Each structure stands twice: as structure tokens, then as C-alpha cells.
């Protein structure tokens, strides 16, 4: 007997007070309100992000609702406004790398993105108002809303094939991306057409959601997304993306340093002769060596501070047609800011925390091509805190980082070279409650 475990529904959750076991088939990975979940024989509930989606639970969205359901194999359903869906069954066998999902789609609009389900034979079966849809390998849009006068249609965005059948009889089949199965005006017959561009755009708008909502994610998450994808003009004081993991991984005494990420967009900004008023933010994340001496702090909340130096440098073989490079900064004449948040901890298995690094530097200008230069240097401060639950010692901290990245060619084709940032610091680990 195969030792692998077949994950039925991926997760099991004990819900309710009756002791009944409800099978979770996935998670609500994004929710714009409102979406309601109606479990069999139970009262309806308002879905929020992170909620488990239960086997046979009917999920309905209202006119503004938007929901993404993520299954354990990577399959996802994005459910548009005024739509309903039931995950009838989901079976995932990680060891065999196979999965099967059966879902019932009611009215509304849906985007299906297959994980293992669509790569498995008969792995994705969708019962729809127009018949049973089988999807092989890819992405499909399904529109049963009737909005805009559009007929019910099933679009193959990417993949191998989509079949539409009724009581086992194949009614229609697509095997080329960019085509749609369309229900005819008589409600009986189907045709296959090239997907009109207007349908695709309507789908995009329906599934992106309106502005002003954030998918149920914490507001700071939304800010992170906005910052991450809007780095050319980061909001003042905004947190650089990805610098505050909510689930820090082990970091104590970690070497070598992780690599800070240097933004190509940032480089395009600073290596532009007409950006006198622009900003440059370096996004970085690195680990450091934490060495400590002194008394052992068994438990309590701790912090540390430190100072150090960093340098920003680059080396290029050419730029701006071989002339001189110029960059300026927003933090006053000849300076630019560096703002990095560095995850800290756990310094042992039970510790978590975060640290912030900030500093400023003086920028140089008019560097001739072909030379390597330290472009800026200056002091920075490090502050951090962590919840020490496992015996971290007080004392000195020290660390460093050094990272070089190639210039991003696409942003500035006239520049070829590397850009880097390095630094080191020393500090003191300060137990708060000795």
C-alpha cells in the first residue's frame, strides 16, 4: 500500500461546537465584501480572507463582491460579482502529483487557473449552467452572467483543451488558446469563435475589482502591494516592499548575508541626467551575525541599537552614451536616503522580531565611464527589537553586508555595469528587563 497520504480537501478543520468534522477544500485568499459562505445545514457566514472554504459550502458574492479561492494544489478560482460557486470535491495526492476538483458554478463570472488539477486526466470538472466543462492544462474564463448582452461563454485563455459535454456527450471542444465556446441565442446550440477582445477586457475589469477595496487583506498589505508596484514614486515614508516578513525565518548567527535587492527602477532613476529632484530608495534585506556576551536573558522583550557605515557604489563600462553619469537626490543637496528594514530573528526557536536601518549618504556626480566609484557613504542607525523567549545573551552585535547586482539593461540601455551596496555595523544588545 502506498505510504503517501492522499489529502482529501487538503486540510481538515474542526468547526463548530457539535464536534462534526468539516472538510476544508481551500482557503479564501482574497475577498472583497461581500461574499457569503453557506454550509449545508448551517447558518450563512461572511467570508473573510484566510477563511477555510468548506466542502459543499455554497459561496455567493454580491454585486460588488470578489473572491479568490486557492486550493492546496495551486488551483485557484477567482469569483466575480453576483456569482456563486460550490466546491463539490477536491482530492490532491502530492506524492503522485495528481489532483481532481469538481465544482458547481452558478450564475456569474469566474476565472479558473489550474494547478495540478488541470494537469491530471479529468482533473478539473466544472458543472455549469450550460453543461459540464472539462479543462486540461491552463486558464479559462467562464461567463454566465449575461451582463452587457454577452451570451454565456467559456474562453480558453491558455492550455490544452476545454470540452463542454452534457450527460457524457461532447457538445463542443476548444483546443486553441484565444477561442471561446458560445451559447447560441436559442440556448441549445454552441459555436466556437475567436474570443472578442471586448469580452476579455470586461473580464479583466470584473475580476480586478473596483478601487477602494483591498481584497480583505490588512491595509498595510495593500500598501505594500502599492509600494512594490509603484516604486518609481514611492509614497513618502512608505515601507519598502517585502521588508517586514510576518513570519521571520531563522536568522540567528546566519552567514553569509542575504542579498539586498537593488531595484532596476531605482537605478534608472539615479542614472538619469534629468532627475535632479528624484528619489532613490534601495530595497534591502540581509541577515547579520549576532554575537553576544554578558549575562543570559532567559525571557523578556529585548531591543538593540547600533551604528555603522555603508557605501553605495557602482562600476560601469559605459553609460549615457559614454559620457558622464549624474545623479542627485531628494534628501538635500548631494544626498539621498537609504531606508532598509531588516528582519531579525528568531535568534532562537522562540524569538521573533524586526529591525529598521536608516541612513543618508552624500552622492558624487560626474563620474567618468569605465571607473568604479564609491558613490555615497555615510552613517546609518540600526534599531530593532525582538521577543526573546529562549535565552539570548546581552552584549555586542555586529554585522555586515555586501551585494552587487548587474544593471538592468532594459531600463537604461546606455548603461552597462554593476551597482552595489555594502555596509557594516556594531551595536549593543539591550535586554529591557534585567
Amino acid at each position, binding site marked *: 500500500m502506498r505510504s503517501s497520504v492522499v489529502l482529501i480537501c*487538503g*486540510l481538515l478543520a474542526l468547526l463548530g461546537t457539535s464536534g462534526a468534522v468539516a472538510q476544508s477544500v481551500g482557503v479564501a*485568499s*482574497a475577498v472583497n465584501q461581500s461574499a457569503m459562505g453557506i454550509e449545508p445545514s448551517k447558518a450563512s457566514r461572511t467570508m473573510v480572507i484566510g477563511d477555510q472554504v468548506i466542502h459543499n459550502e455554497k459561496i455567493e458574492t454580491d454585486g460588488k463582491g470578489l473572491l*479568490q479561492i*486557492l486550493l492546496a494544489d*495551486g488551483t485557484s478560482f477567482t469569483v466575480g460579482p453576483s456569482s456563486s460557486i460550490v466546491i463539490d470535491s477536491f482530492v490532491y495526492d502530492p506524492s503522485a502529483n495528481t489532483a481532481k476538483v469538481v465544482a458547481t458554478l452558478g450564475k456569474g463570472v469566474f476565472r479558473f*487557473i489550474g494547478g495540478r488539477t488541470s494537469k491530471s486526466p479529468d482533473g478539473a470538472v466544472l458543472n455549469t449552467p450550460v453543461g459540464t466543462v472539462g479543462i*486540461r492544462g491552463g486558464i479559462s474564463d467562464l461567463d454566465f452572467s449575461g451582463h452587457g448582452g454577452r451570451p454565456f461563454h467559456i474562453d480558453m*485563455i491558455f492550455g490544452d483543451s476545454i470540452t463542454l459535454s452534457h450527460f457524457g456527450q461532447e457538445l463542443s471542444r*476548444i*483546443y*486553441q*488558446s*484565444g*477561442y471561446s465556446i458560445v451559447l447560441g441565442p436559442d440556448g441549445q446550440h454552441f459555436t466556437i469563435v475567436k*474570443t472578442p*477582445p471586448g469580452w*476579455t*477586457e470586461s*473580464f479583466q475589469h470584473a*475580476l*480586478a*475589482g*473596483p478601487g477602494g*477595496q*483591498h481584497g480583505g*487583506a490588512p491595509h498595510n*498589505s*495593500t500598501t*505594500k*502591494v*502599492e509600494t*512594490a*508596484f*509603484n*516604486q*518609481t514614486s514611492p509614497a513618502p515614508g512608505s515601507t*519598502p*516592499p*517585502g521588508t517586514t*516578513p*510576518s*513570519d521571520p525565518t531563522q536568522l540567528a548567527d546566519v552567514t553569509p548575508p*542575504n542579498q539586498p*535587492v537593488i531595484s*532596476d527602477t531605482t537605478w534608472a532613476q539615479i542614472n538619469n541626467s534629468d532627475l535632479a529632484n528624484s528619489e532613490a530608495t534601495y*530595497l534591502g*534585506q*540581509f541577515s547579520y551575525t549576532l554575537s553576544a556576551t554578558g549575562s543570559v536573558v532567559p525571557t523578556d522583550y529585548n531591543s538593540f541599537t547600533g551604528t555603522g557605515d555603508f557605501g553605495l557604489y557602482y562600476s560601469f*563600462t*559605459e553609460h549615457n*552614451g559614454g559620457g558622464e553619469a549624474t545623479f542627485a537626490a531628494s534628501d538635500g543637496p548631494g544626498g539621498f536616503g537609504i531606508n532598509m528594514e531588516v528582519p531579525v530573528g528568531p535568534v532562537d526557536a522562540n524569538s521573533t522580531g524586526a529591525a529598521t536601518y536608516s541612513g543618508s549618504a552624500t552622492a558624487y556626480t560626474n563620474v567618468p565611464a569605465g571607473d568604479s566609484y564609491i558613490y555615497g557613504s555615510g552613517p546609518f542607525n540600526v534599531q530593532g527589537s525582538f521577543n526573546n523567549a529562549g535565552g539570548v545573551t546581552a552584549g555586542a552585535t555586529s554585522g555586515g553586508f555586501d551585494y552587487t*547586482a548587474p544593471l*538592468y*539593461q*532594459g531600463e537604461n*540601455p*546606455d548603461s*552597462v555595469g554593476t551597482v552595489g551596496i555594502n555596509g557594516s555595523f556594531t551595536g549593543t544588545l539591550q535586554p529591557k528587563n534585567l
Partner: protein
Amino acid sequence: MLRARLDHPPARLWRAGRQILALAVALAAALGANAPAATAAPIVPESLVPAARLAPTPENRHMLFQKMLADPGNVDIALQYAELSSQAGDIEGAISTLERLLIFAPKLARLNFELGMLYFRLGSYDVASAYFKSASEAPDATPELKAQAAAYLSGADVQTAADRTLGSLMFGARYQSNANGGAGSPWIYLNNVPFELNSTAQADPDANGFAAATMHFTHDLQSQGDRLDADVNLYGSLYDKHDELNTLAGEVQAGPVFNLGRFGLSNATLGIHGIAGAVRLRGDPYLYTLGLGAVATHSFDPLTTAHARVDFRYEEFMDSDLRPDVSSMTGGRTRVSVDVQHEINPILSINAATYWERKLAEIGQDADWEVGVTTGVTVRFPRPIPLGSGPWSADLSGGLLERKYDTPDPTFSATDARHDHEAFVQGVLTVPIAPTWSAIATVGYRRALSNYGLYTYNNASGSLAVLKSF
């Protein structure tokens, strides 16, 4: 007649032209028109990867996915997972994740742009276009991003147009140490008797100017991937000294291509085409060709594609004053070939091919079997000097072939049929000098060995050319 055959061995005259034309076709295909290269574009830009870099191993992806399931609102994990998914080739996984972020923040230009890039890479050009339009219309769209989106929109329009035409023009100059493919030694043996070749049959360097034109036309039949394709390839050359090598040649192939998805074979096509061609040497008609062919194409994944091809050409060679006995080579030529290309990463690609060819002729000494293998590697790299408008690419290829004729040529031997072996290497440097212009430098070396001394030779060559793609 014997004198002419020894002075102007005909079989290799057109070979140089075919090599140049093949190069032009390959370069035109590689350079494309103005459509951006989807595979060269970053899936999720490095700037969006927030945390320590993880290798795109199944273990790391599984770890991140489990974290994502547990904490779907965590943007950092989502970005990491999207990046690793794209690196691992799971573009659907990256799309699913970024579309979730789009629910978090729907009006961001950059996020819409990245999703457009992902769909563009999948070949889902309509969806890609919708995202590029959203990116351009977003309130935070910068002029640079709008320009990039417009370029990709243009590329998507080209890809989705019912009728598409791609082509190239190539002009250049070439030098060969042995332009006429002459024997390396003035003495050969004819039936074991030493024979001194005329100087015209001996290796002689020469330079030539050449021009090559290619055109590829596609008409979408609007039936789930079926289409009509037509290819036109033209080549001409003028030599400094050896005007007998002046060449004018052309070939047309046209026919339908069918999507084999209808038979359950995904990402596969079968094309059937007719072939017509002609070659003139020094103004004299030399060769007329009519034929049929079929080519099966299969993409194993977005980065690996293979072709299997069979072509039959009936070749009619025309005698002339300079070549009075070439008509004996008239007959059918059947060629079966298989090739595969794989893009290891946006920087490095590899390819390999093998073929088998059967040439029939009116007399056995002109009929032969031929087999060959070739392999090559292409490297794209940042320009090392401030010349050009983008990354350069270097191709290095090499190959071996063996050719064996049916019967002895009594001029050379009463008992032994001709038996050749050849090897070649070639390097090509492509320098984009403008959006649709490239400079191309080529160097090559070919070594041919034959039991008939007339056909043993070396040839080193170098060329410089300019290619305009459209």
C-alpha cells in the same frame, strides 16, 4: 566534358549561397520584427522580490505555498512565490498569485503591466493586451511604463493579426580562402594515375558581395490555429574574380498548417507545403526545383520546440557552356530532418539537428546518401563596448556530415565510389545597431575529405553584413 567536370565541380557551387540564406532566415526569425521578445522579458522584475532570494526548487516553492495558504494576505510571501513560480516555469502559478494582489490593489500600473508580461509569455495576447491597456490607463502610469506597454501592445497586435508578414533584407561582403571549393592539392589521382589539375580547379581565394531576402507570410484561417504559411527566400552574389560562381537563387514554400490539438496533440502542428525554386549561375540557368514537404512542430514547453521535417524536391539541372554535363545530376532529393531548440535561460539557448538525405540522379555516380548532425549555442550578453542598441548575441555552431555515392565515377576510379566526410564550425556575432537593424559578423571553417582528391579541400571564410528586419 571531363575537363569541365574537373574544372568546375558542380555539387558545391550553390552550397555557400544556401548557407548564407539559411543564416539570413535564422537571423530574421531570431530578430523578429518589432515584437518584443516575451521570453527575454522578466516575469516578475527583480525589484519586486522582497526578501532573501530562494532558489526555485520544488521544496522552496512548496514551503512558500504552504505559507501562502496559511497567510494569504501576506504580500511578501506572495511576491516570493510569484517570482519562484515564474523562474520554475509555472507561469500560471505566478499569474494566480499576482491576480490576487490585483484584488488587493487593482489600479496599479506596474502590477497590471507585470500580469500583461506573464500572459504575453504564455502567448495569451488578448489578455496581455487588456492588462497592458489597464497599465497605461492607470493613474500611476509613468511615461516609461506607458511606452513599454505600448511596445508590448504593438507586439500583441502583431501576434493576433489575421495576416502577418515578417521579413528581412541582408547585404554583406564575404571573403573565402577557397571560394571555388577547389582541391587543396594540384595533383590528384585518376584511376591511380597522377593528374595535375588546371588552376581553375585548385583552391583560390575570392571575395564576393551578397544579398539575401526572406519573407514569411501567415494568414490565420480562424479555425483554432490552422493557418496558411508562405515563405520566400532569395539570394544573390557577385564574385570579384570567380564570376562563374555568381549566383541568383530563389525558393518559395507555401501551404497550410494544421493544429493537431484537434487530435488531442497539444502544442503541435503539421504543415504541408509545396516547393518551387530556381538557381542561375553566371546568368545561366542551373537548377529548377519542384517539390512537396511536411513539417511537424511540437512545443514541449514554452522554452523547448522541436521540428520534424520531410521534403522531396525534384531537381532538374541544366547544362550550359560552362557546365555541359550537370544534367546528369537531375533527379529527386529526399531529406528528413529533426531539430530541437531549447532556451536554457534568457541568456543561453542551445540547438541540435540531424538529417538524412537521399539524392537520386540519372547516373549512379551523381546519386548519393548523406547524413549529418549539427549543434549550436547562442549566448546573449550586454554589449561590451558602446555600440549598438541592445544586447549582443553570439552563435557558435558546428557539424559533421558523411556522403556516399552509389557507383564509382570511372573518371576517378573503376572500383571505389566517392565517399566524403565534412566538418565545419561557424561563429556569428549579431550586434543590434537600431531597433530593426543589425550588424552581423561571421567566421567559419569547413574541412572536406574525400577519397576522390578533387573533393578534398579546406575553406575559411569571414563576412560582414547588415540585416534589416521588418
